[in-house]
Structures are given as structure tokens and as C-alpha cells.
């Protein structure tokens, strides 16, 4: 067996795609119109599109999170960074800056947040979970300062279009997530960055001793995570035409981590797959949308979610893999 990249996908990715298929099937069972699509004003409408559109912010967060987790780290601050960048974008939009200026500022702020996290982790050697917790906690405060405690709303056509327009019949956030995913996959796989990230994640000491510039790679990784959080934050603000410092991106860091884990990247670092993290994000959103469509009382939301996730993780566990292997052989 050779495990070239496509090879690795075709074998290792089976559980992820099977999970997605199972969740979609379940959605179809509780809501028979799940796969219905219709075209309206050159834009596709349907539950599947909702899954893609609503899943886009978590999918984008999961892109950066995948790289961070591959280095054996974690970025708890992405939800708060979303709030900060959304606040910056909304405040500037309310003051009628150009879209280019708004995006540049939001991305710069996101990169800065990532750099801060990276500095704590790579230079000061603070454990990632603690280092990023700092910004997770203070980030919403910073966002509050930007919005002065209010929900800043705007009517900026350009910024509204970021989440509100469509391309190729798909909502813009979906297109952004896809393009970013492809770009990031190209960045890590066409350069040596992916190998170096995996190497640091598996054994940072050995990698450093082999001459790998671990600090720079870690800094870059956290910065990418900050940037993806910025993009997600701008989309979230654009979506509701306002910035809600208290609630934007709330708990999404956990969904992003879950997406990466469901996508098969180990929290212990090492091998990662950006494509599969996207699949993981879709699984989570398909489940969320399915719950909303099912009409179950909301008290059951979290229970259903927990049961499904527990089932997914059990199915993907090495123990289950051994069991399946055994069943196949016998």
C-alpha cells in the first residue's frame, strides 16, 4: 500500500465521508424535503445550501484550527477574534469606509491576534490552551470596547455583500470557504510548510534539533488561524449586518475544534487533512440544521447533538477501526 495523498484520502477518509452521508441521510429521514433545491434570483435555495452557508464560518475557522492542532496546539481564541474583527468591520462600515479598507483592517487585526497567540506559544513557550485562553477571555472585552457595548449595525452595501451576495448560485460564504480551503491546502502541500507543521506536531524537540525553525512555523500557524478567524468574523458581521460583541462567534472555537477532530486530525498533533476538516465542519452543521428541521423541542437539541457526536467519535476511534478490520477479515 502506498499512502500517497489521494491514496491516504481514499482509505483514511472513509469514516468521515461515511459519517457525512449518514447525517445527511438522517436529515432526509426526519425532513423529506431536505435535498430539495430551487433557483431564485440566480441563487440556489434549499436546506443543503443552508448547511453549506451556515457551516461556512465554522469551516473557515476549522481551516486555521487544523494547522494549529496539527502542531499539537489549540486556538481557543478564534471565537473572540471573530468578535473583535466583526466589531472592527462593523464599526468601520458604520463610518462608511471602503470595503477594501474594512477588509484590510479586519484581516490585519486578525493577523495581529494570531501573532500574539503565536508569540505566547512559540517564544514564551506557554501551553497553547492557556496562551489562547487569554485572548479568548479578554477578546470579547476588546470587542466591547470597539463597539462601545452596543450592537453596531450598518447599511454598508459592500460589507453586506460579503455574506449576502452569491456566486455560481452559491452563497458567498460558501465560495469564500471553498476558495480559502483550496488556497490553504495549496499553501501547505505545495510548499514544505505542511511537512514542517506535521513534524513539529509529532515531535517539536526532534524537529528543532533537525534544524526546523519551529518558532517561525508556529508563529505562522497561529497567524493563519487569526486570519481565518478574521474572515469568519467579517462574514458573521456581514450576515446580521451588525456586530454583536457578546455573541458573535460564541462557542464557535469548540465547534471548530470538533470539526477538526471529526475530520480525523488528532489533538496530539501530526498528520492533518484540510479537506477532511471541511467535511467535519459540514457534519456538524448538517447535524445542527437537521435538528432545527426536525421540529423536536429545543430542550433536546444538545442531547441529540451530544449523542450523535459521541457516536461519530466512537465509530472513528482506533478501537472501532480494529473491530471493523477484524470483521472484514473474518
Amino acid at each position, binding site marked *: 500500500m502506498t499512502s500517497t495523498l489521494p491514496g491516504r484520502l481514499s482509505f483514511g477518509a472513509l469514516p468521515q465521508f461515511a459519517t457525512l452521508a449518514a447525517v445527511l441521510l438522517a436529515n432526509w429521514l426526519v*425532513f423529506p*424535503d431536505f435535498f*430539495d433545491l*430551487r433557483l*431564485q*434570483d440566480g441563487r440556489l*435555495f*434549499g*436546506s443543503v445550501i*443552508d448547511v453549506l452557508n*451556515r457551516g461556512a464560518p465554522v469551516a473557515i475557522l476549522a481551516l486555521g484550527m487544523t494547522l494549529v492542532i496539527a502542531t499539537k496546539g489549540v486556538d481557543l481564541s478564534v471565537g473572540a477574534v471573530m468578535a473583535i474583527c466583526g466589531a472592527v468591520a462593523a464599526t468601520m462600515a458604520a463610518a462608511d469606509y471602503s470595503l477594501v479598507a474594512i477588509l484590510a483592517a479586519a484581516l490585519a487585526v486578525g493577523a495581529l491576534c494570531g501573532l500574539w497567540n503565536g508569540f505566547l506559544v512559540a517564544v514564551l513557550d506557554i501551553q497553547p490552551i492557556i496562551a489562547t485562553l487569554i485572548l479568548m477571555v479578554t477578546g470579547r472585552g476588546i470587542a466591547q470596547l470597539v463597539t462601545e*457595548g*452596543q*450592537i453596531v*449595525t450598518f447599511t454598508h452595501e459592500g460589507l453586506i455583500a460579503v455574506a*449576502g451576495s452569491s456566486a455560481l448560485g452559491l452563497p458567498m460564504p460558501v465560495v469564500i470557504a471553498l476558495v480559502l480551503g483550496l488556497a490553504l491546502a495549496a499553501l501547505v502541500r505545495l510548499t514544505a510548510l505542511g511537512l514542517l507543521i506535521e513534524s513539529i506536531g509529532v515531535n517539536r524537540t526532534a524537529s528543532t534539533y533537525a534544524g526546523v525553525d519551529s518558532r517561525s512555523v508556529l508563529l505562522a500557524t497561529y497567524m493563519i488561524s487569526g486570519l481565518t478567524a478574521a474572515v469568519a468574523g467579517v462574514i*458573521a458581521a456581514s*450576515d*446580521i*449586518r*451588525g456586530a*454583536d460583541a*457578546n*455573541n*458573535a462567534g*460564541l462557542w464557535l472555537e469548540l465547534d471548530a475544534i470538533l470539526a477538526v477532530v471529526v475530520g480525523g486530525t488528532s489533538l496530539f498533533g501530526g498528520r492533518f487533512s484540510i479537506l477532511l476538516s471541511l467535511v467535519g465542519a459540514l457534519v456538524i452543521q448538517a447535524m*445542527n*440544521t437537521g435538528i*432545527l*428541521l426536525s*421540529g423536536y*423541542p*429545543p*430542550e433536546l*437539541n*444538545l442531547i441529540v447533538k451530544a449523542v450523535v457526536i459521541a457516536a461519530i467519535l466512537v465509530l472513528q476511534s482506533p478501537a472501532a477501526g480494529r473491530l471493523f478490520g477484524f470483521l472484514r477479515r473474518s
Partner: protein
Amino acid sequence: MSFKKLLMGAVYTCALSVASAAGAAELTVGFSQIGSESGWRAAETSVSKIEAEKRGIDLKIADAQQKQENQIKAIRTFIAQGVDAIFLAPVVATGWDEVLEEAKDAEIPVVLLDRTIDSKDDSLYLTAVTSDTVYEGKVAGEYLAKTVGDRDCKILELQGTVGSSPAINRKKGFDEAIAAHPNLKIVRSQTGDFTRTKGKEVMESFIKAENGGKDICAVYAHNDDMQIGAIQALKEAGLKPGKDIIMVSIDAVPDIFKAMAEGEANATVELTPNMAGPAFDAVMAFKKDGTQPPKWIQTESKVYLPDTAAAEYEARKNLGY
């Protein structure tokens, strides 16, 4: 530790001296506010100042930063200063007996604002001014019943955070109001966590689940923010909220007035930030001739409609929501 105390003292002194700049007033009232936890809370503080000014009352506000110990310290400072009355927006329900006993011994009446306390001894406070979240839901339901009339109406409900008391109560009140009208029926109910994003997402799925939204008659949201998200979802699906679909929600934040002014929402039930106004009146009456107010003053839960929306928006947009 002692430095911290010193700092606290300094902060209070500053806060008090700034707030008492109103000058020679008949009455001095100390207000221990929870902190700036939400836009509504900020509006409550602004409105309290405005109401005090209207009545020529010297209002001293101490911000407790969501900590009970700060509130207790603030009340003791107020007692030491010999204020005429103390307003308390308690951050938690228990643990107040001792400090309120001290206020009682100093013969300073205490008025609870917005939230109540758990205490066996209701002589510890003069009265409590609070809203009634069950009643708010009821008002919203009655508005809808009246507006819809006799035709059949499928209602979608956007609930607040599962298990939170406003969500439970606003649902309860609404259910009670529409129980008498069999033509009104909640067909879908989901939580939108009181946020715009979730309100929008839930509404998108409701639209898919309810035949592209063609059968929806009304949307009831437990707060305005979710309703604003829902309005966006409906518009993006090519529907006409406010016209084809009746939109009713609770809170009366500025942005919902904007939506009403644009014809996209129909009504909001106010959770008034003016808790201090009725409290001032009760205290003034009590000080004048010893009039005992009722133990519970329920604030008005007024329905606002599009006709006054533009004016209300202008009046509210600077209150700090």
C-alpha cells in the same frame, strides 16, 4: 489587599462625587447598579439619571461590576453618607439580609429594581419595582390574537436560551394568551439563544420546513435581536415580514423600531428600562406623608406599534442600548 480597598474607595468616591453634581436637591438617592452587563442595563442607568433629573433628585450611582460584595460595600457607604433612600438592583437573590437590616436600622428605605431577593423578612425593603416577563409574553400574545382576528394562523416561535427564566416565562405568558384562540397555533418552536445570528439561522430552517414560508402567518420572538435576524432571513427568502407575516417580539430595543419604521416588524412589547421612575415616585410619596407603596410595583409592559416607531427610535438610540 489594603491597596485594593483604597482603590475601591477612591473609585466609589469618584463615582459618587460625579453623580452627585446635580447640586442642592431635596432628596438624595443611592443606586447600587449591577454593572454594564448588557445594552438594556446601560439604558436603565441612563434612564435613571434622566428620571432623577426630572424630579430634582440627587442620584448617586455605584457600579458593582457584577459583584455582590461591591454592592454591599456601596450600600454601607450610602448608609454612612445618610442618603434618603437606596435603590438596589441585586446581582443575586440571596445574602442581603444583614446589610438591608443595617439600612433598616438607619431608617433608610430600600427599593429593589428589576430583580427581587429571597428573604423571609419583606420589611427589609419598601417595595420592588420589576417587570413581569410572563406578562410581557401575555401582552405579545394578546396583541397577536387581536391583530389576526378569526382566521387560522400558523405561528413560529423563536425561544430564548433554553432554560433561562425570561425564555420560560415569555413562552408561558404567550401560551396563556393564545390558549383562548384555537385558530392560533404555534407550529414550530426553536431556540435562537437570544442572538441575531441564531435567530436568522433558525428562521432559515423554519422557512424550508414550512413550505418555503408561504404558510407562515406570524413570528413571535422572545427578544428583538432574534426577530431582527428572522426578518433578514425572511427577506432573503423573498418573503415580506411586517406585511404578509406578522412580526411580534419583546424588549423594544432601538433597532426593532427601525425595522418597524421600515414596515418590516409589527409590534414590540417594552421591557422598560425605566425602573427608577416609579421607584422615585414611591419614595417621594413615602417621604412626604408616609404612604406605603404596594410591595410589588409592576412596570408597564407597553406595546409599541409602527406609527410611533420613528420617533421612538430617535428617543432611544442614544440611551446606550
